[in-house]
């Protein structure tokens, strides 16, 4: 940093600072500060109860806090106990429902209707045709046409016989 006052020694700097600080030290209040302070204290309103409580000795504060806590806890406990005693426990309403039939085992149910064995439990079932084509062929017998007959490829397009 460039010093524009190179001839100003540290001692002079220090003297300058000291003379400025001496100004602060020499500051004197206006006459009668003590009387004004006392008058202000005399006219101050007394502290509110919470200020007095906060400024009070710690033992008093703790005792009052503990007593308040005990009172609150006791009130809550008393209220809870009495609330439980006044209201009876809820009873489920009696609703008549139709009697459900007894469930039978599958084998017993099949025997009751004259089937010796339940179809789901039958071990060997006859093979069935599966699929549309096989089913169609099984249901419709093949029609034998006379020789020389040309079968229409699209019979539904033929005109109806007059």
């Amino acid at each position, binding site marked *: 940093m460039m010093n524009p006052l190179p001839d100003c020694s540290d001692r002079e700097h220090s003297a*300058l600072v000291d003379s400025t600080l001496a100004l602060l030290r020499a500051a004197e209040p206006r006459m009668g500060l003590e009387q004004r*302070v006392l008058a202000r204290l005399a*006219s101050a309103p007394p502290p509110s109860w919470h200020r007095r409580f906060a400024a009070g000795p710690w033992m008093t504060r703790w005792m009052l806090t503990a007593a308040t806590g005990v009172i609150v806890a006791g009130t809550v406990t008393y209220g809870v106990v009495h609330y439980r005693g006044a209201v009876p426990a809820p009873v489920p309403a009696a609703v008549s429902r139709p009697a459900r039939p007894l469930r039978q085992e599958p084998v017993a149910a099949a025997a009751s209707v004259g089937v010796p064995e339940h179809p789901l439990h039958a071990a060997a079932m006859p093979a069935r045709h599966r699929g549309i084509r096989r089913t169609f062929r099984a249901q419709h017998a093949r029609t034998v046409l006379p020789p020389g007959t040309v079968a229409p490829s699209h019979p539904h397009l033929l005109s109806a016989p007059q």
Partner: protein
Amino acid sequence: MGTYEGHLTGLLPLPEANETSVPAADQAAALTALVHEYSSTLYRVAFSISRNAAEAEDMVQETFLRVLRHRDRLPEIRDARVWLIRIVWNLVLDRKRRQKTRPENEDIADLVRVLPAKELRADQAVISAQRHARILALIDRLPRKEREALLLSALEELSNGEIAAVLSTTESSVRSRLFRARRDLATMIGSEKGLQ
């Protein structure tokens, strides 16, 4: 609503906050003694930061109001002077923090008023006041810790140990802060034109 007027003049007993504590009359007497003994010191502490006479006086009154609220603790206080200085110090710093948005007002007229009137002509007094105001502005530019230590050291009543108690630090820390503050201040003054 009642006031403390009667309590302080001895017409009414102070409200008993603690039965085992010092009697109310003794509390009032102790408080009055504190006011008479330390008002000027507290004023100087407040003035060193605020540099405003009215504000400094306000702070002194507020300090003793706080003492009044906590008068039950008076017997427990070992060093009332440091305790009071700490209260006023925190109050002034708090107020200054809240007023930070306001422009700094270096009241040169106040400085001229407190300048020693030793064969100084009016123009010399003004020049001197401006120079001191400039130094104070440079002090304000110091880091907070260094600035606080330097301002408290301006009060000759306070030793380094007491400054450490006010600032809640150690005595060696106060010494190093003072050293750094003066070194930085010398650098800043050196870079200022027209101070000398």
